[in-house]
């Protein structure tokens, strides 16, 4: 059963991956890529790493949905509505792809894969967290918050409209002067 599921998912993942470069529509290419990644998520679940697999499904779905919007938005032709191709610099790309494939395949075949030692843990999610973070969980959480604060601060600094635009030169205005009405306090 597992073997059958593996082959179905693996073949689907590769076929969808190839179709990304065959479709001439941005939307189809994006969602073909998503289908391929969902299959990969299924393969990870098949390995017994349920949490990682489901997180791949979650993150990739949201990411691809948002990416579809941005890719359509930034296409060179109007709104990405004209036929397009994902293939550029065909010869160079083919050479690079061939080399990378050969390298990876050689790695798979030549690497001395270790045999399984011990048994699978009862709670792989917990083990995964422990081996990734170990006792440094609090450090990582703090770091995560610091990174998040940095992102927000960067956006705040980079935005064209600052507080002086919103609340006047002496910051005395009672209501912020925003191009978009509504929201909190207005």
């Amino acid at each position, binding site marked *: 059963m597992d073997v059958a599921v593996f082959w179905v998912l693996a073949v689907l993942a590769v076929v969808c991956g190839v179709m990304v470069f065959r479709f001439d529509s941005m939307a189809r290419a994006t969602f073909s890529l998503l289908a391929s990644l969902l299959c990969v998520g299924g393969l990870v679940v098949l390995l017994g790493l349920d949490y990682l697999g*489901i997180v791949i499904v979650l993150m990739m779905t949201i990411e691809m949905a948002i990416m579809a919007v941005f890719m359509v938005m930034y296409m060179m032709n109007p709104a990405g509505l004209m036929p397009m191709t994902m293939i550029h610099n065909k010869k160079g790309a083919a050479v690079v792809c061939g080399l990378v494939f050969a390298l990876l395949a050689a790695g798979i075949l030549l690497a001395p894969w270790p045999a399984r030692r011990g048994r699978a843990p009862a709670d792989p999610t917990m083990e995964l967290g422990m081996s990734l973070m170990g006792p440094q969980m609090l450090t990582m959480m703090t770091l995560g918050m610091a990174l998040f604060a940095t992102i927000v601060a960067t956006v705040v600094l980079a935005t064209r409209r600052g507080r002086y635009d919103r609340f006047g030169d002496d910051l005395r205005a009672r209501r912020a002067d925003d191009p978009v009405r509504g929201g*909190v306090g207005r």
Partner: protein
Amino acid sequence: MGERAPLWAVLVLPALLVGVALVTAGFDALLAAGARYGRPGSLREAAVRAAEPGRQVLRQLVQQPRRTRASDLPLARIGAALLPVAAVLAAVVLPLGFRSVSDLPEGIVWFNAMEALAWAAVWLAGWGPNSTLSLIGGYRFLAQGLTYELPHMLAITTAALGAESLRVGQVVDAQAGLWFVVWMPVAFGIYLLSAMAMAFWGPFDQPAGGDVAGGAGGELSGADRVLFLGGRWLLLVVAAAFSVPLFLGGGHGPLLPGWAWTVLKTAAVLAFLVGVRRAIPTVRTERYLELAWVVLTPLAIVQALVVAVVVLNR
């Protein structure tokens, strides 16, 4: 810990969900007709009004489907079909009483991942017909998704944190003494808001708003339309039902058996959500965005912090 349900539950689950969705839609149609024509005169009249969604489904199925020009039919169809599929897959971890079809160890993440599929589904259904208004609907749903997802994730994480497990069965077990809604009211409120937004329902129906001629599903017809709009009802039912194991104690309650409590609580939440739609006008996405980021996200983080401190001190 939740028990395993028998194998036939896999077949019963979609049928049960569709049944609940039809009843909810009937209730909503009854309220809508009541608001339009006044109170129903007789029980018979009320039944006719409540059967309206069922009649609409049958009418759509026999109607000649409409096609738009240069539409991407496969993508629109995938989008329309994916919506109910995502809802049913999310419902796999829903316990009826103390039994779910599959009590996955990562049930809460699974639920979140499956509802994320709805993002792709709605955008595809909006993109496929090659029509401006439906495309705007699809884009609006993604924008709405970005506004509700962060507080939503924090809210369901809070419930998992309180139970110290991602397994839905253990979240229910942890509420044997005290329902989570009592000491996580903020997370529960945020969850209810995002449950409505997830099904682009109530004040969050802008993606399917009248100002864009029905938005995301506006151009769909025939079976595609039934799948899409039915899938939306299923999503609402599933999102509302998931609040029961997360915050309302699942099947716990005196006297009645577990499944009866689950049904009662789910019905109460659904009735509330259906009522809210009549009471509150549509909120524009960018207004909710500011509220979600400036108010709801910090509130959700504080709520998670409180729960974390309580759990650490146990």
